[in-house]
Structure formats: structure tokens, C-alpha cells
């Protein structure tokens, strides 16, 4: 039976071979082990030997050609055997490719096998590595700015302690380029005891904070509960306490009266991680998007009623949306928020930025404390602001410091779109056109005025569920405006 001669693998790394010279001619007798051809591999010139005996019936690859591993290069058979089938098969592309693939798969299986084995053996190693990597992280928690809770707990006594423990060499010797130098043990002890390493001077070499420094700090801390209590009594300091400790938060009064009061909450470790990771994944503000469809018939009715009662001051659907958004924002302060690197800032008021298209761009004048204003007030304010915007007469305080923005492209017939957040705001709502659509209500297909909105959220402050809850309220209020009362 005729057999195919394939380009053999003649070195461990060979992928293709050049047929240097045929040592037999078509029609020559060959026997097992006899050299058929010389092949140049990546390593050397090798002889390809016949693996079967017979007559070299057909040479398919002439001397000088380079072909991949597994390519059929010749056919050996009986002198009078019909080899047309094999020749046809060899000349079609599929067979050589399949051969090559087979050889390569075997070679790779060997390699992969090893890798798989390694991969399966590695888990133990990987765990070890996790542990190793986990530990420096712990060290970081203590070492770098102590973060989160520890800092919050000790900020109150920062000043007093910093004065008390100021090293004599004229500065915190333990800081090298802003980094706290601390032994791993001391870092862990500090984290456990909630001690801010920034406040300590190390007694080790180069100001390294070591075990005894933490022990001393703990001892000192126990002797000064009084001083700490006094420090905490100051309202300014209380602002940094967590909400759990302070159910009725007091808000800082901002310097500019035009901006919303806010309270700063320290960025938790988790929050910092979310911020860092998401920012790394997409740009500095990691966006995500939530879309919902809202039935607007009642809003349309409400608008009609308002406009019938006061024909001088007609309101738009967008004015109602601003009002509703503001009410919902106050109910969901997590969305009325801003990522401020070390803290997340939660605003007390809903200052709504309203995107206004102007001749060569876009500006977002702000409706301050929209939740406190009537729809009519909002309407008048928006109109005035838009006019001033188009006239380029807006003052900076009129278009900065929004806590949330709304962009409405419904008037352009846009069904649905996504808007880009205007930093440092936490979110922006993109409002599409209101249009009649068939919907199912109580098992019946009816026509309703539907509107699609998409909220872009800054994932550093807003998570999927918090955003969704806000939108849920927003939708409920629009679908039942009476709930606002």
C-alpha cells in the first residue's frame, strides 16, 4: 500500500524544513532506513529516511523549497500501484495542514502537559504568594497614612499628639519621602490598636517605628482618655466621625455661600480600592450606566394642569424632571456625592446642573437647592440661566459646583443616550425623548408616553445597586408625581 512521506520533525525546535536535496529519484527503489532526502532544519542538515520500503513514486516538494512540518513531500508505493488519490489528497491544502496540526498538537501537548501539571501544582505556591502579598498590604495599611478608621479615630488628637511626640531632630524622622518607616510587627500592632503611625516618632534606626514605640503609644493613649474626649467635643472635629457614631450629621459650612454644604467621610479601604481599580480600568472617572424607561403620562397631565393654571409661566417636562431628580437625590445621598480622593463628599442640597447647548459648545448652569424649589421656580430659573448662558453672561458661580447634572436631548428626537460625567460630580442623567409607545398594562396593550433615561455613574462613589435605587425612586416619582407631596 502506498504511503505518504511527510516533512519529519528532526530537531526539538524544528517547525519547517528546507528540502535541500533529494537522494532518490522518482522510480528508485527505497527500503526502510535508507536516506531519501537531505533536509535543512533550524539546527543542521539532516537526512530524512524512508520509514517504509517500496518505490519512490512521486516527489511532491522539489529541492530548494521550504515546507512546514508534516507537509507531504513524497509518496512511496508499489511500482504499479494507483497513487492518484494520494497525490490529489497531498495537493489539496487540507491534508498537509492536518498533518502539521497533528504533529504540532502532539508537540504542544507535551509542553502544555507540563504547563498544566505546573498549573495544577502551583495552587499551593499561589496560596503562599497570596499570603506573602497579603502581608505587605497589611503593612501598608499601617504604614501608609494609616487610612480609614485609624485616621478618623485619631485625627481628633492629632495636634496634641504631634506636639507631644515631635522628635527633637526637628521633624518626623521616620518619614522618608513621605513614607512612614515602620517594622512589619509595629505596623500590624498599630493597625490593631488603631494608632496613626503618622503621629509617631520612631526610636529605631533612621526613625523606624518599632514594637516599643507602639507599646509606648498604647500606654500613653490609655493615660489620656480625657484629652481625647475634649478634643472630640469640638464640632469641627466631630465632622469626621463616622455616621454610625453620629446619626444626625452636621455639615460643614462651606466658605462660598453659593455652594452646597457637605460632610466629608473618609474613603474606606474598600472604597479606595474600588476607586483605584475602576479608574485604572477606564480613565480617571470610571463610568457605568443605568437605563430605565419611565411612563410619563402623569407628568404630562401634571404639566398640562400647571400650565393651564398659570399661562404666563409655562413649565417644561424637563423642569419637572429637575425637581423630581432633586427630591430623589436628597433621598439617596450616595448619588448626590463626589469622589474627593481621600474622602467621599456627600452633599446636603441637590444643586442640579442643567446642560444647555450654546452656539459653540455646552454649559451647565446650576439650579441650587432644586429640591426646595417649586416647579415653577425651577422653570423660571432655568429659563433665565439658559438665556444668560446663550448670551454668555453667566458668572462662574452660576455654572460651577453642581452636585448632579441633567442633560436632555429629547427635543432633538434622541430616544436614548449616555452622557459623560462632569467631574467632580458623581453622576449625570441623560434624558431621551418622550414618545407614545405600546406597553402592556393589566394584560392589555395600551399606548403610553414613554421616556428613556440613562444615568452615568462614577463607580468610585456610586455602586450599581445604589444608582439603581436612586433611579427607582426617580421613576416612581415621575410615574406618581403626587408622591412628592
Amino acid at each position, binding site marked *: 500500500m502506498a504511503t505518504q512521506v511527510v516533512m*519529519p*520533525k*528532526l*530537531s526539538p525546535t524544528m517547525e519547517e524544513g528546507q528540502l535541500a536535496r533529494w537522494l532518490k529519484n522518482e522510480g528508485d527503489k527505497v527500503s*526502510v*532506513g535508507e536516506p531519501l532526502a537531505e533536509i535543512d532544519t533550524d539546527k543542521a542538515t539532516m537526512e530524512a529516511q524512508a*520509514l517504509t520500503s517500496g518505490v519512490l513514486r512521486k516527489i511532491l516538494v522539489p529541492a530548494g523549497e521550504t515546507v512546514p512540518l508534516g507537509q507531504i513531500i513524497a509518496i512511496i508505493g508499489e511500482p504499479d500501484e494507483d497513487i492518484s488519490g494520494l497525490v490529489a489528497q497531498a495537493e489539496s491544502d487540507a491534508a498537509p495542514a492536518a498533518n502539521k496540526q497533528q504533529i504540532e498538537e*502532539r508537540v504542544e501537548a507535551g509542553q502544555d502537559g507540563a504547563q498544566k*501539571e505546573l498549573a495544577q501544582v502551583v495552587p499551593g505556591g499561589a496560596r503562599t504568594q497570596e499570603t506573602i502579598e497579603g502581608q505587605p498590604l497589611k503593612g501598608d495599611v499601617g504604614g501608609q497614612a494609616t487610612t480609614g478608621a485609624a485616621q478618623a479615630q485619631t485625627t481628633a488628637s492629632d495636634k496634641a499628639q504631634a506636639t507631644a511626640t515631635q522628635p527633637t531632630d526637628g521633624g518626623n524622622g521616620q518619614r522618608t519621602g513621605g513614607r512612614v518607616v515602620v517594622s512589619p510587627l509595629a505596623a500590624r500592632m498599630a493597625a490593631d490598636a488603631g494608632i496613626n503611625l503618622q503621629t509617631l516618632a520612631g526610636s529605631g534606626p533612621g526613625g523606624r517605628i518599632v514594637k516599643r514605640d507602639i507599646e509606648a503609644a498604647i500606654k500613653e493613649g490609655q493615660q489620656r482618655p480625657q484629652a481625647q474626649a475634649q478634643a472630640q467635643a469640638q464640632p469641627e472635629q466631630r465632622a469626621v466621625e463616622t455616621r454610625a457614631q453620629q446619626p444626625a450629621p452636621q455639615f460643614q459650612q462651606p466658605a462660598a455661600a453659593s455652594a452646597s454644604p457637605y460632610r466629608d467621610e473618609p474613603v474606606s479601604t474598600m472604597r479606595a480600592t474600588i476607586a483605584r481599580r475602576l479608574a485604572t480600568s477606564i480613565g480617571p472617572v470610571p463610568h457605568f450606566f443605568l437605563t430605565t424607561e419611565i411612563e410619563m403620562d402623569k407628568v404630562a397631565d401634571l404639566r398640562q394642569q400647571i400650565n393651564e393654571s398659570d399661562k404666563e409661566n409655562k413649565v417644561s417636562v424637563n423642569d419637572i424632571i429637575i425637581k423630581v431628580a432633586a427630591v430623589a437625590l436628597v433621598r439617596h445621598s450616595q448619588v448626590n456625592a463626589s469622589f474627593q480622593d481621600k474622602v467621599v463628599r456627600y452633599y446636603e442640597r441637590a444643586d442640579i446642573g442643567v446642560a444647555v447647548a450654546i452656539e459653540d459648545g455646552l454649559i451647565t448652569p446650576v439650579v441650587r437647592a432644586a429640591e426646595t424649589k417649586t416647579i415653577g421656580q425651577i422653570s423660571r430659573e432655568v429659563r433665565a440661566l439658559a438665556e444668560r448662558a446663550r448670551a454668555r453672561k453667566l458668572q462662574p458661580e452660576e455654572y460651577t459646583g453642581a452636585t448632579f447634572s441633567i442633560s436632555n436631548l429629547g427635543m432633538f428626537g434622541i430616544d436614548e443616550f449616555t452622557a459623560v460625567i462632569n467631574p467632580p460630580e458623581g453622576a449625570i442623567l441623560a434624558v431621551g425623548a418622550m414618545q407614545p409607545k405600546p406597553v402592556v398594562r393589566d394584560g392589555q396593550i395600551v399606548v403610553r408616553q414613554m421616556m428613556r433615561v440613562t444615568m452615568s455613574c462614577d463607580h468610585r462613589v456610586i455602586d450599581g445597586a445604589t444608582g439603581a435605587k436612586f433611579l427607582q425612586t426617580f421613576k416612581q416619582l415621575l410615574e406618581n408625581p403626587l408622591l412628592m407631596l
Partner: protein
Amino acid sequence: MSELKVKPLKPRGPSAAPASAGVVTERGPDEIDQAELRAEHQERQQHLHASIEGLERETLLNMLSQMVLIRRFEEKAAEAYTLGKIGGFCHLYIGQEAVAVGSIAALRPDDYVMTSYRDHGHALARGTSPDEVMAELFGKAGGCSAGKGGSMHLFDRDNHFLGGHAIVGGQIPLATGVAFAAKYKGTDQVSCVYFGEAAVNQGVFHESLNMAQLWKLPCIYICENNQYGMGTALKRAMSLSDVSQKACAYGMASEFVDGMDVLAVYEATRRAAARARKESQPSLIEVRTYRFMGHSMSDPGNYRTRAEIEKYQERDPVKVFIESLKQKQIVDDATIKEIEDRVRAQVEHAIKFADSSPEPAPEELHTHIYANPIK
């Protein structure tokens, strides 16, 4: 069988004329003299015919079967290598079959055999299943070393095959130690170790021969002189290239044997085994042989002329043995075909077995490091 039908061509060692102080041979540094070799081969042909008469037909057929098995097995291994089924190094034994088969046939099953990395032939001659040898080459769990040793490290404790060892000469002191143990325990077992002529240049060859003769250890040192240490011809690497003469330095008995003649190897080993068993004396046997393939599968063998290879192929040990057996009417074509068919089936089975044997389990990476592991 009668002793010493034909005298060794170049008797050496204590029984021969003692080496002169200057260790000068008449033709200077030994060279492979083709004319002389041919003459030797002629003489050997007659020897072969003569010694066949002294052996049982069954013994002869067994030897032939083993030689054919090794030849076909190695051809199949070469094929499997080109198909990517065998990785790493693969040193084939084609051309040297008479050495392992002839010598191992002269040993008892409880004697010990140890060799270098060119070890497929010895394992098969020793009785290791072709299935397990092929599976080992394939790196499979069913291999004779559980897939951890590979081509160069075949081991088979049940058949007293103490392995292939891959540092040139590394097996020589090990086998010396095996002989030491046999003598220590008072068994009359013999340790037989194979190495290439290039290993003779390693210090440990000389250290081992010294100890073996000093302590009279039952060890047979078989130098498979295939005349090339990888790509370097013997005469380019050894000042005195007559290997059997090296034994003189230690007062050890030695012989030079034609490695293309399976029965010459058999007889020389028989003599050495008897010397080891009865007198507890070591021997060095230089077996002049030739590998028909490259050093390993990735060696094109460019350093040898085609003419040289062809000269040796005329003396192909398998072919020569078959011809002699036919002339003596021990076998006919039908018997040969029968053997070939049986061997082909064995080798095909070995490939199937190796293909279907599972890969070693991942946890095998960490087993067999210690016999008494301590956590």
C-alpha cells in the same frame, strides 16, 4: 559449549604480553584501519559459523529475536520522534544490537546490568517490556520509570536493570559498587556495565577499574567502542586509542571483541562472567562496534563519510547473523518472517500501549524525592 573455539583476536591483560613501559604500539596512536578491520571481519565470519554449532537453536533464535526487536523498536522510536511523540534526547542503538544482546545472553537473570544514556537496547535485551520502554520514551505513567526518567533513564528493578545514566562515565563507579555489594553479601552475582569509549577518558573510569582490581570485584566493564564520542572521532580524543590496553594499568584482564558479531560478544562475556563468578575478578572488554545513526536524533552525523558508514553496514550485525544462521540451516526464510512478524506486532503494541498510557499525574512531580519523606 566448548571453551574458546577461537582465540580472541587481540588478547590483552595479564595473560597477554605485558605492556611495555613506554606504552608504545607498533602503529602509533591507534587508528581505525579499514583493511585490518575487514580482515578481522572475515575471520569473524568463520568464527561465527563455528560458534553457532556450539549453541542450542533456541538460544540462537532468542538472540536473533532480541536483535530484530531492538532494530525495529529503534526504527519505530525514530519515527515517533519525528512525529513529536518523543521529546528531548533520543539516542538510538541501531548498529550496536549485537553488543547488548550477545553480552546479556551470557549473564544470569540475577546478575546486574547498568549502562549509559544509550540504553534502549540493554533494557530490551534484559527483558524489560517494549511497552514500558516505549511508554517511558513517550513520557507516560506506564513507562518503566513512571515517565520521570525518559529515554536516558530507563530502570527495571525486577529485571535487575539498574538504569541508564546520563553523565558520561557516571555508571562505572555505580556498577563497581554493585559488584562490591555482591561480593560483600557473598552472592555469586556479577555486575555488568556498559559505557562508550569516550567515557574511558573520564577519571572515574580509572578510579573504578583501580578499585575493582584492588578489591577483586565481580564486575564486567564493557566498552562499546562505536568510535565516536558524539561527533569526535576516537583518535582525536584519546592518546592511546586501544581501549582494551587501558586495563593493563590496573593489571586487569581484558579482551578486544568484534561488536558486529553477536556470538563473539557472547563468548567474551561468558569468559568474563565466569572469571567474575568463580574467581571474583573483574574484566574489561572492548567491543568494536558502530552506530548507524547520529549520536542522537538531532545529529546529522556529518563528521562521518558515507563510505565509512557503508563499510560497517556491510557488516550489519543483524544481517550478518541471519546470513550465518541461514547458511548453517538453523533458520529459513519462513522462520525469519515469523520473527519479523512477531516483532512487528510487539512494536506496534508498544506504540499503542505508549499512546494510550496516561500522562503522569500532576502530583507525581513531588513523589519519589525521598524514600522517607519528613514533613
